[in-house]
């Protein structure tokens, strides 16, 4: 009878699946009982109530305002804020640098393409953490003391204390100015088709008009509010710098290392995407009388984008995940904050769950956004 059952395909499939589920459930139960026993033995109480207690540890720099008297929950949020900030900054900068690297690799110029290819090969074959530690070591040992700070540009100081740059101090009026400027630009871009058709600017005039109108907007608002904006220059006073914006060595090393590393990968993705568009597309564009620029913008780039976006998505995602390496150089992103909280409270399970949950959420959000964008670009092709 068992043989008959074994020969029954449906029975075998369902039996196998039930067995798999049962095994998994047994494993989970085993792990949970172990954990409960271990926690009991060590006298650790599980729960998220510790989040409302004051954190009592400093975070050296943060995008969000933070004070050691704040709660553990706020410390987490500060960590998440730092992670998000460095992720966005690193992705934006390395996309820009990656575009340069990718185009340089494709260049006909032997010197430029040679330098770019040496850069890509060198950078990609070394671990990111070595890059970060290298730049951090450079920033903390090779730079001069604050007294003899390097002053490459007026108002820019580079020393062991970090990089000091002029800061634009915005008050409420100036913030309103920037907000208005961005809003008017966004409106213009959103309605650019209407603007273009209203003024009958089908050719190259459209971009010019947009620029002119935005400049007019900017000038108008600037004339109203510019006295409210001031430039704060760093200067060496006593034993330290005052004024300006300070970029810590940790932040600078992290940013330089992460951007260089990521840009090498992005450069290769962009180069591969443009290379993958067949040469016949260029020729066809010329044959139907499109200008070189229009061939590029209307024929080549849309097709290259479709090839570039999926690998670019995974590159962006791994950049977000790579920001956790910041804890090797001591920049207080989420990983470092979580490590500190575990040391302080011993609430390892909850803290790690928060860490993993945050990254899963970010990963999911980025891939959803990129999928949406990918679908949009793919539609252009189907039209």
């Amino acid at each position, binding site marked *: 009878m068992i043989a008959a059952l074994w020969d029954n395909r449906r029975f075998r*499939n369902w039996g*196998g*699946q039930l067995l*798999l*589920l049962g095994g*998994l459930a047994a494993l989970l139960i085993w*792990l949970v009982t*172990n*954990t409960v*026993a*271990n*926690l009991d*033995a060590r006298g650790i109480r599980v729960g998220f109530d510790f989040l409302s207690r004051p954190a009592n540890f400093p975070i050296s720099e943060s995008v969000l305002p933070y004070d050691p008297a704040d709660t553990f929950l706020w410390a987490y949020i500060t960590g998440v804020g730092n992670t998000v900030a460095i992720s966005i900054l690193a992705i934006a900068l390395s996309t820009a640098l990656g575009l340069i690297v990718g185009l340089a690799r494709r*260049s006909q*110029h*032997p*010197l*430029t393409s040679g*330098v770019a290819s040496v850069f890509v*090969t*060198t950078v*990609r*074959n*070394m*671990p*990111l*953490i*070595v*890059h970060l*530690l*290298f730049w951090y*070591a*450079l920033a903390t*040992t*090779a730079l001069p003391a604050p007294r003899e700070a390097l002053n490459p540009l007026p108002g820019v100081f580079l020393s062991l204390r970090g990089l000091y740059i002029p800061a634009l101090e915005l008050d409420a009026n100036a913030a309103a100015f920037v907000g208005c400027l961005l809003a008017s630009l966004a409106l213009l871009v959103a309605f650019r088709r209407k603007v273009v058709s209203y003024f009958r600017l089908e050719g190259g005039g459209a971009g010019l008009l947009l620029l002119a109108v935005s400049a007019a907007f900017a000038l108008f608002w600037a004339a109203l509010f510019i006295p409210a904006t001031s430039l704060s220059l760093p200067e060496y006073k006593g034993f330290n710098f005052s004024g300006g914006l300070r970029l810590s060595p940790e932040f600078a090393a992290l940013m330089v290392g992460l951007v260089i590393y990521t840009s090498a990968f992005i450069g290769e993705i962009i180069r591969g995407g443009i290379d993958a568009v067949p040469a016949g597309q260029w020729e066809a564009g010329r044959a139907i009388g499109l200008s070189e620029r229009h061939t590029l913008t209307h024929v080549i780039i849309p097709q290259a984008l479709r090839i570039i976006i999926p690998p670019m998505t995974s590159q962006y995602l791994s950049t977000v*995940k*790579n920001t*956790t*390496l910041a*804890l*090797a150089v001591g920049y207080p992103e989420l*990983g470092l904050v*979580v*490590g500190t909280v*575990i040391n302080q409270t011993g609430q*390892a*399970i909850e803290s*790690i769950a928060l*860490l*993993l949950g945050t*990254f*899963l959420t970010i*990963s*999911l959000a980025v891939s959803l956004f990129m999928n949406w964008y990918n679908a949009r670009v793919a539609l252009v092709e189907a039209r």
Partner: protein
Amino acid sequence: MTITDTTPILGRPALATPPRRSRKPVVHVFFGDLAATSLTVATGFLLLSMIPAINWAVFDANWTTGDPATCREGGACWAFIAAKFRFIIFGVYPPDQQWRPLVVMGLIITMVLASLSPRLWGRKLAYGWVAAIAAMLTLMWGGVLGMALVPTSSWGGLPVTLLLALLSLGLGFPFAVFLALGRRSKLPVPRLLSILTIELVRGLPLVGLLFVASILLPLLLPAGWTIDKLGRTLAALTVFAAAYLAEVIRGGLQGLPPGQVEAAKALGIPGWKTVWHIVLPQALQKVIPPLTNTAIVMVKNTSLVLIVGVFDMLSASRVAATDPLWPAPYVESYVFVAAIYFVICFGISNYARWLESRVQARTYR
């Protein structure tokens, strides 16, 4: 005129010789037009700005020194690397026993060289690898054949880096095959479980997994079970490698023509035999070039174990630079370690390119 003769009556147009590529004079390449000139100037400027770094690293560098304290004056202190070479490579492994990790590295190099040619791939080579890895671990641990016992807490340096990469890939591979097959399965339970596992691991940073392994794993296991730090790290790396390998293998499975499975079904070959003898051999052969990419990623990722305090090559170089006798030559240390990683990864990627060209040559024969 026969039917097979398709020569046009008006005669064949003269065979166009491909236009000879005109060799532009060098001056023209670099200063031919505005774009070329500006690129030359920009790149030249970039290269000129590297001169201080090259001076520091080569011309002003100290290759030998009598006095460590003044070694860094003027240029790089490569004498430090010469002095600390053994420590960076072998870590805190007992000095009189360091022939053992040396033999281990020799074994690894021999096995890698022996596996290069696709002609030798087969069951024998796989058994050879298993035997070699068993021999490596025995050599590292000792405790038998008159070799002193060396606990994993004393292992360090390059052998740890190489072993972590090899073992995580080797142990992760069988799991990856199951995950990939599960993800392609028509049954809901294995498919969902595989998708969940793969996407969960791929959505997390490796640092997070290392935290889980080093902090949570002791809580999850019964009180009596202890796994040392190296073992826990290896577990995290294995899980990570398995998820990424699974996606590569899935690519190979998808590339297999469905006719192969249908033919097996038509011949009445039972399911598991089809998978084992027909699907997997063909799929795995296809994915070997992309698998080398994962190998590079894993070699680079082993450096992350520094974060949970495992003494790999990078940690060893960092500790070496803290020696107060020397003027904190961290930069030199990291450059040296980066060079070793570069040699390994560059070697693998060039091998992959060669392999790919071979595979293509065979496919299009």
